C-alpha cells in the first residue's frame, strides 16, 4: 500500500475499519437473468452514496471481484466498466446527516453549579479572617483587593499559556509552565499588597496566603484536578459555620485558612509533580521539538488584561453591594454551563444552516437565549443573596441591581468571545470600562456596564456570526 496519511486530525481516532459490504448470498445456481441488477441491489446503499464510478470500482475490488470474474459473471470488460454501469443504474441518495459525532461533552449543570460554589467558598476565608484584619477598617481590604487583582491578572495569562500547551497535546510542558509561573503569581500578589499597605503586616500576610491559594487553584483547574479543592476547603467552611454560631479562639481564625491554603498548595504541587514524573522518567526534556510550542509569551497578555479589567469591574460591584458580588461569583457556575450550551447551539446551527446569512441569524438567536437564561439565573441568585445576607434589609436600589445584571452580561459575553479565541476585544472593552469611572465619576453603577455589555453583544454578533469563528 502507499502511504496512508488519512487527512484528518490525528488527534481524533486515526483510522476506522474498512467498509464491510453486505454479506453476499451464496449463489446456488447459474447467475440469474440480471446479475448486474442483483449486484446493484446488494450494493445499493454503497453505490447510492458513491461520489464517482471509481469509488464503486474500488469497493468491488476490495470485495474480491477480479476482472476475470467480472468478465465471466457480469459481462463487463473490467471493474471500471461494471462500476460505471452500477453507478448509472443506482440513483444518487445522500445519507441523512445523522447525529453529529459526539463533541467534547460539556459538564452537566450540577457540575457547573458546584464549580460556581467552588469559586465562591474561598470568600469565607475573608469572613474568618475579618476579626484579625479589623483595625484598619475598610482600608484593611485594600491590600487584599490589590493582591487579588494582581493574582487574577497573572493567573489568567498563565492558565492560557498552560492550556495552549495542553491543546498541543504536551502535558509535561503545560505542567512545566505552571511550575514556573505559579510562584511568580504569588510573589506578584504579595508585592501588590505590600505596595498598597506596607505597614499593615497581618493584611500583607493574609494577601500572601490568598495569592498562594489562587495560584494553587489555577494549577488544579488547568490540570482538571479542581475537585480536590472541595476537601481542601472543608476546614474553611467548617470554621466559618462554627464561627457563625459561637465565638472561636482568635488562633483558629488564622489556623483554619492556613490549613486550607497549605492543603491546596500541596495538592497543586502533587499534581504538577505527577504529570512531570509520568512523562519524564528518563529526563527526555532536551529533545522536545522546538517550534511546535505556543508562539511567544505575548499571546497570553490579552488574557491577563481581560482578567484585570473584569476583576476590577467585579471589585467595583463588590465594594458597593457585597451580596451581589457573591451572586455574581456563584453565577459563574451557570455561566460556564451556558457557554457550553451556546457552543452546542451554534454548532447545531452550523450543521443546519445552508447559507451564511441564516447562520448569522441562528447565532444571534443562540446568544439571545443564553443571555436570557443567564439573566434569569443571576436574578435568582441575587434575590437569594439579598434574603440571606445579614443586614441587607434596606437593600441596594434597583439601579444597582440592574448594573450588576448588566455587569454579568459583560462578563459572560467577554468569556464567550474569549472561549472563541477573540480575546483582544473583550480585554480592551473590560479595561476601558474599568477605567471609564475615572473620567466619568458615577458612571460605574449603570452607564459603564450598559455601554460595555452593548458593545460586547455587538461584537459577539459580528465576530461569532462568522462561519470561520466556529472551527
Amino acid at each position, binding site marked *: *500500500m*502507499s*502511504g*496512508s*496519511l*488519512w*487527512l*484528518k*486530525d*490525528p*488527534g481524533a*481516532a*486515526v*483510522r*476506522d*475499519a*474498512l*467498509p464491510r459490504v453486505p454479506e453476499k448470498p*451464496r449463489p*446456488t445456481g*447459474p*447467475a440469474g437473468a440480471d*446479475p448486474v441488477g442483483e449486484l446493484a441491489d446488494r450494493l445499493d446503499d*454503497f453505490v447510492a452514496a458513491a*461520489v*464517482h464510478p*471509481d*469509488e464503486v470500482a*474500488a*469497493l468491488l*475490488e*476490495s*470485495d*474480491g471481484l*477480479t476482472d*476475470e*470474474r467480472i468478465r*465471466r*459473471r*457480469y*459481462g463487463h470488460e*473490467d471493474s*471500471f466498466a461494471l462500476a460505471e454501469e452500477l453507478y448509472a443504474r443506482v440513483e444518487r441518495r*445522500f*445519507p441523512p*446527516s445523522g447525529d453529529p*459525532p459526539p463533541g467534547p461533552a460539556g459538564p452537566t449543570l450540577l457540575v457547573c453549579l458546584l464549580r460556581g460554589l467552588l469559586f465562591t467558598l474561598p470568600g469565607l476565608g475573608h469572613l474568618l479572617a475579618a476579626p484579625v484584619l479589623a483595625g484598619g477598617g475598610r482600608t484593611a481590604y485594600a491590600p487584599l483587593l490589590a493582591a487579588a487583582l494582581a493574582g487574577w491578572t497573572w493567573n489568567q495569562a498563565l492558565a492560557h499559556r498552560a492550556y495552549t500547551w495542553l491543546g498541543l*497535546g504536551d502535558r509535561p510542558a503545560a505542567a512545566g509552565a505552571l511550575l514556573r509561573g505559579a510562584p511568580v503569581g504569588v510573589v506578584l500578589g504579595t508585592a501588590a499588597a505590600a505596595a498598597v499597605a506596607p505597614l499593615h503586616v497581618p493584611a500583607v500576610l493574609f494577601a500572601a496566603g490568598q495569592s498562594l491559594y489562587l495560584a494553587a487553584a489555577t494549577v488544579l483547574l488547568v490540570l482538571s484536578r479542581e475537585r480536590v479543592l472541595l476537601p481542601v476547603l472543608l476546614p474553611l467552611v467548617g470554621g466559618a459555620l462554627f464561627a457563625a454560631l459561637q465565638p472561636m479562639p482568635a488562633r483558629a481564625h488564622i489556623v483554619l485558612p492556613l490549613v486550607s491554603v497549605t492543603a491546596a498548595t500541596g495538592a497543586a504541587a502533587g499534581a504538577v509533580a505527577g504529570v512531570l514524573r509520568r512523562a519524564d522518567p528518563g529526563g527526555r526534556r532536551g529533545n522536545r521539538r522546538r517550534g*511546535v510550542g505556543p*508562539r511567544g509569551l505575548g499571546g497570553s497578555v490579552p488574557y491577563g488584561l481581560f482578567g484585570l479589567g473584569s476583576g476590577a469591574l467585579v471589585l467595583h460591584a463588590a465594594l458597593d453591594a457585597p451580596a451581589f458580588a457573591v451572586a455574581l461569583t456563584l453565577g459563574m457556575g451557570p455561566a460556564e454551563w451556558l457557554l457550553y450550551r451556546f457552543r452546542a447551539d451554534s*454548532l447545531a446551527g*452550523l*450543521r*443546519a444552516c*445552508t*447559507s*451564511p446569512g441564516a447562520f448569522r441569524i441562528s447565532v444571534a438567536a443562540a446568544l439571545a437565549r443564553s443571555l436570557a437564561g443567564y439573566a434569569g439565573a443571576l436574578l435568582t441568585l441575587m434575590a437569594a443573596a439579598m434574603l440571606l445576607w445579614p443586614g441587607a434589609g434596606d437593600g441596594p436600589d434597583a439601579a444597582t441591581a440592574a448594573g450588576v445584571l448588566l455587569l454579568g452580561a459583560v462578563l459572560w459575553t467577554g468569556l464567550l468571545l474569549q472561549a472563541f479565541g477573540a480575546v483582544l476585544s473583550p480585554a480592551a472593552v473590560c479595561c476601558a470600562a474599568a477605567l471609564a469611572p475615572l473620567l466619568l465619576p458615577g458612571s460605574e453603577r449603570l452607564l459603564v456596564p450598559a455601554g460595555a455589555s452593548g458593545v460586547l453583544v455587538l461584537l459577539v454578533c459580528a465576530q461569532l456570526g462568522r*462561519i*470561520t469563528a466556529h*472551527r
Partner: protein
Amino acid sequence: MSQGRHVTMLTEGTYPHVHGGVSTWCDQLIRGMPEVGFTVTSLTGSGREPVTWELPPNVRTHTAVPLWGPRPGRAHAPRRGADRRRFLHSFERFLLSLLDPDAHGDFGAALDALTDEARAGRLSAALRTETAVRTLMRLWTRPSLPTAAAGPTVHDALTAVDLLEHALRPLAVRIPEDSVAHAVSSGLATLPALAAQRLDGVPFLLTEHGIYLRERYLGYRTEAQRWPVKALMLGFYRELNTLGYERADLITPCNRYNRRWEERGGALPGKIRTVYNGVDPHAFPHAGAEPSVPTLSWAGRIDPIKDLETLIRAFALARAELPALRLRLFGAAPAGCEWYATGLEKLAAELGVADGVFWEGRAGDVARAYAAGHVVVLSSISEGFPFSIIEAMSCGRTTVSTDVGGVREAVGDTGLVVPPREPEALAAAALELLRDDERRAALGRRARQRVVDLFTLRRSVDAFRQIYLELAGTPGAVYEPPAAETVADWTLELRDPWYQEHTAWGHHWSEPSEPETGGVR
C-alpha cells in the same frame, strides 16, 4: 542539473516514520545507492511523529512537513485588493474544477495559480478566511452542480475548506533545484514535485506501490463527513492523482497490476515502466527445516488494510480440520491501530481459537518469522508488491495470499492465490498445502528460484539508478525494463493450467464455476 546524483524523496505517512513495505523499499533504495545524495521530505500528521528508521549517511537532510502542525506562511491573509481578487479567482476556478464534472481540464491551471500563492506564503492564511468559506458555499449550492442536491451546510463548507487548507500545505514546500524529485506515492506527496517541476525545472518521477486513489476511496467510506465534503475531497484526490500521472516525467509502478488504475487515471502507457520491488536473497536465506507443529505464519503491520479478520476466521476453519494447527502473527499495531489489534484478539476468543493464535510482536529478524511457518499467509485487501511475499519466497517458503495488487505477479506458480475476504478459500488453500508435504517443498524451492531470477534487490536498485540518470538528462541513459527477464507475460502465466485450477473462480471453495459455454461470456 543533478546528473542523477541528488534525489529528493517525497513520502506521505511512511518513511522514515513508520515501518512497512513502502518504508522498507525507501530504505533499501537509499542504502543501495551510496553515491547518490538524498533529501528526504516526509509529509506527516502532527509533526510529533518520531523518526523510527536510522537515516543512512547519504541522506543529506530530512524535513518533516506536518499537515496538522502550526500553520505555515504569513499570519494574515492579503489585505490588498488585487491580491485578494487574484486569490479568490484562482480558488474559485480550483473549486469548480473539483465540483463541476465538465470543468475537469481546469484543475492543473488552478493548482498552478494556488502554487504561486503558496510560494508567496499567502495560501494558508487566505484559505482560513471567511471569504474562502463563503466562496465554496456560493459555488456548491449552484443548482447546476451535483453537490447542490446533497444540501451542503455551512458546516460542510467550513470542514471542506479546512481540509483543503491542510491538504495543500505541501505546495509551499521547496525542494532543491539540482535534484530529481521522486514522489513515492501519488497524491499529496506529488504537490512539492509538481510545483518544483513547473517553477524550477526539476524532473519528476512518480512511484506507486499501492493505488493511492483506491485507498482514499476505501478510507473515505467510513469517514463521518457528509456527502458534499466527501465528494469534494475525493474529487480533489482524483484530480490531483490525474495531474500527477499527466505531468510526471516517468511513472514507475511496482507491479503491472497498478497500470490498470494508472491508465484509467490518464497516464500515457509510454511513460509507465514497471520496476518490481526486490529482496536480497542473502539477507533472506533458505529457512531450512519446517517447525514440528503445523504452523501458518504471517508478518506485517496489524492494520485494517491487512484484513487479519479474514485470516483469523480462516484459521478457525482450518483448525477445525487440523486441531494441532497454530497461527503465528509477527508484527505490531502502529499507533492509532491498537483498537484493531484488540478487536482481533476478541474475535479469536469468540471463535474459540485464542489458544492457537500467537501474537509475536515485531520480529527483530523477519526471516525467522517466515521460517516459523510451514506456509506463509497474506490476507490483505490491498497491496502493492508485498515484501512479505517475496521475502517468504526467498526463504524458500510457499505462500497462500489474497489476489490483490501485484500479488499474483510476485507469486507466479510458487504458491496459491485466493480471493480477498473469503476465509473459506484461504482456509482451504492453506489446508491443501499443509497436507501435501511434497508439493509444499517443491513450491518452496521454486519460490526461492523465482526471487533469485526476477526480484532481487540489486536489480531493483540498478533500475532506479538508471532512471535517475535518465531523468537528470545524462546522455545515453535510458532505463528499459529487461523484457526477457521480467514477467512481461504475466497474463499468460496466470492462465496456465495450474492457476486455472486453484484461483477463485475456478475452484469449488468460492462460487460454483459456471460452465465455460453457459457463462455470461
